């Protein structure tokens, strides 16, 4: 029953709108949409907007879907990225400066005897650099405090310098490890140019770092350090715990058409994605050895759960349409609402009367108990009966009447269902309020 569906979702297919405006629909379908728009100011408004542009807005809608998806995954939008990065650099710079200064002080105040301790310190600073690089290289923004837009950009300059100085320090280490000059030159080159930004600080740091590396105390452990350095200097692949994998795929209906707007979730996490207009999705997950469980769900389709093994990163998922999609019963609550009561304070929100156990259960009750009268079956009558009822302040029902008739036996059956049905909770303002209930009749 497509009609029931519409009422459930209030969802209008963008494709339908496009085809309507492009004149691709037949008269019946056009009429249906026009009628819907007359009763739905939102839809009417949107149609006007679309009508002013070229009918095909698919590119833009697809783009919007992608942007929304990125937003949900925390990768959009403007403000975020830049400042988060600065913050990170700032933090890293702070750590490095403290350690660097400590190290310098340490080296200058000790002599060769304490070589071992010195190298311990050096290792600490080294690993903190690695950490910093990991943060720096990580793709997803990490919540690193609240990004505060007031921070002036200038702050990022010293932090950059400090980071680069740290890299230089490593170069210094390499020097101590007697690597070839050419190698050093290469690294120096790649690091040098941006340094021009703040030459004085860098130069002084640079000089001192070189001094550190050359200090005799250092030579004892230089080889060990050198062994570590190339690893730390390697750009992206940081510690194994940090690696992620990208699961990509396409969700299709049984007719092989890509399905947009399907929810794909990783079970047990809050990660998930929505498919784009072609049905494609991608989710970045931690690369563990365990299988990842994906939940794929879309309206009107059987949801699917699948185990994705580690090597399986490109998926084709086919969803099957639900056989009897939704119960043939729709309940809608309507009532006349008093102006002004509606938007009070939080704790004082106006509530229409509702069935005591909620609409969900009320629907189930109707679906389970409705008898499709034989006379209606014989005449092949389907449709809905609308029952209007006044919910009194004490929750009792009064003045039950039919406002939309279908066929005498169906009407009587609808009245019976409502009369014998679950109890109602009165409106929150304690007044008698009218509510309407649709009872649908269709062969099972």
């Amino acid at each position, binding site marked *: 029953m497509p009609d029931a569906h519409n009422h459930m979702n209030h969802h209008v297919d963008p494709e339908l709108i496009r085809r309507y405006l492009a004149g691709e629909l037949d008269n019946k379908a056009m009429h249906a949409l026009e009628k819907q728009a007359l009763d739905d100011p939102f839809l009417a408004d949107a149609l006007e907007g679309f009508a002013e542009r070229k009918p095909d807005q698919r590119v833009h809608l697809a783009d919007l879907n992608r942007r929304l998806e990125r937003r949900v995954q925390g990768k959009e939008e403007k403000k975020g990225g830049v400042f988060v990065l600065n913050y990170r650099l700032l933090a890293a710079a702070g750590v490095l400066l403290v350690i660097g200064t400590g190290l310098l002080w340490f080296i200058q105040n000790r002599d060769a005897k304490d070589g071992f301790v010195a190298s311990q310190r050096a290792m600490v600073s080294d690993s903190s650099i690695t950490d910093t690089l990991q943060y720096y290289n990580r793709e997803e923004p990490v919540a690193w405090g609240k990004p505060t837009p007031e921070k002036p950009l200038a702050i990022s300059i010293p932090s950059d310098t400090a980071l680069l100085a740290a890299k230089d320090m490593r170069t210094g280490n390499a020097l101590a490890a007697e690597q070839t000059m050419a190698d050093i030159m290469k690294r120096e080159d790649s690091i040098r140019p941006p340094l021009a930004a703040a030459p004085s600080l860098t130069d002084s740091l640079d000089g001192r770092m070189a001094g550190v590396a050359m200090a005799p105390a250092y030579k004892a452990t230089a080889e060990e350090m050198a062994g570590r350095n190339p690893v730390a200097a390697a750009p992206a692949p940081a510690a194994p715990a940090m690696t992620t994998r990208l699961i990509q795929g396409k969700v299709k209906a049984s007719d092989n058409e890509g399905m947009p707007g399907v929810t794909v979730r990783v079970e047990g996490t809050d990660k998930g994605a929505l498919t784009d207009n072609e049905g494609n999705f991608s989710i970045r997950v931690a690369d563990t050895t365990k299988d990842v469980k994906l939940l794929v769900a879309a309206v009107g389709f059987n949801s699917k759960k699948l185990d994705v093994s580690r090597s399986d990163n490109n998926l084709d998922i086919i969803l099957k349409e639900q056989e009897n999609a939704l119960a043939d019963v729709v309940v809608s609550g309507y009532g006349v609402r008093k102006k002004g009561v509606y938007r009070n304070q939080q704790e004082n929100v106006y509530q229409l009367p509702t069935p005591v156990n909620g609409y969900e259960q009320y629907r189930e009750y109707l679906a389970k108990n409705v008898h499709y009268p034989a006379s209606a079956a014989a005449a092949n009558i389907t449709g*809905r009966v609308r029952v209007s009822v006044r919910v009194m302040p004490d929750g009792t029902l009064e003045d039950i009447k039919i406002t939309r008739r279908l066929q005498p036996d169906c009407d009587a059956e609808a009245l019976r269902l409502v009369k014998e049905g679950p109890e109602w909770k009165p409106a929150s303002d304690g007044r008698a309020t009218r509510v309407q209930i649709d009872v649908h009749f269709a062969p099972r």
Partner: protein
Amino acid sequence: MAFLHQNIMKDADDAVLIQEFKRSGQLDYLAALYQRYMNLVYGVCLRYFDEEASKDAVMQIFEELIVKLHQHEVQNFKSWLHVLTRNHCLMKLRSMKNREGREISLEGLPVMENDSFAHHENGVNIEMHLQGMEKCLETLPEEQKRSVDLFYLKEKSYREVADITGYDMKKVKSYIQNGKRNLKICMEQQDA
């Protein structure tokens, strides 16, 4: 209710998704909800801005939703979103107007009142009314009567109505809208 949890993303009521979003703070729920109406939001924005600016507006409205849903109890999400969208666009237009001194007509685009979304009209009501409504129909001006009759009772599309009557398409649309409104008023008087 286990039943609800299983089905939460796919056919949950708007209200349920809102509830889940507020409970968990996860944007997935809100995005799933927003996606249902995103094309409408975009369409409304197109009335005021070009494509690129409209897309930005759609994303800004999403951000606004994140905040506002925590502040307000929303009963009819769709109508509420419609109002939110229009107001967002109008506010933006106004600030653009102030900044750039550009002339944009705001006539006929009033910011909607808060309570206007309490009246979510329902098509069935009209159909129901139509049954006992021949009398009211007779009181309508000729153009409205013909258009309403063809559209609602004979289920013709705007295009067909225009073809049959020879009226202009745009006129047909307004005849039907006005006719519908007049019928409603007439019916309410009968009811009272």
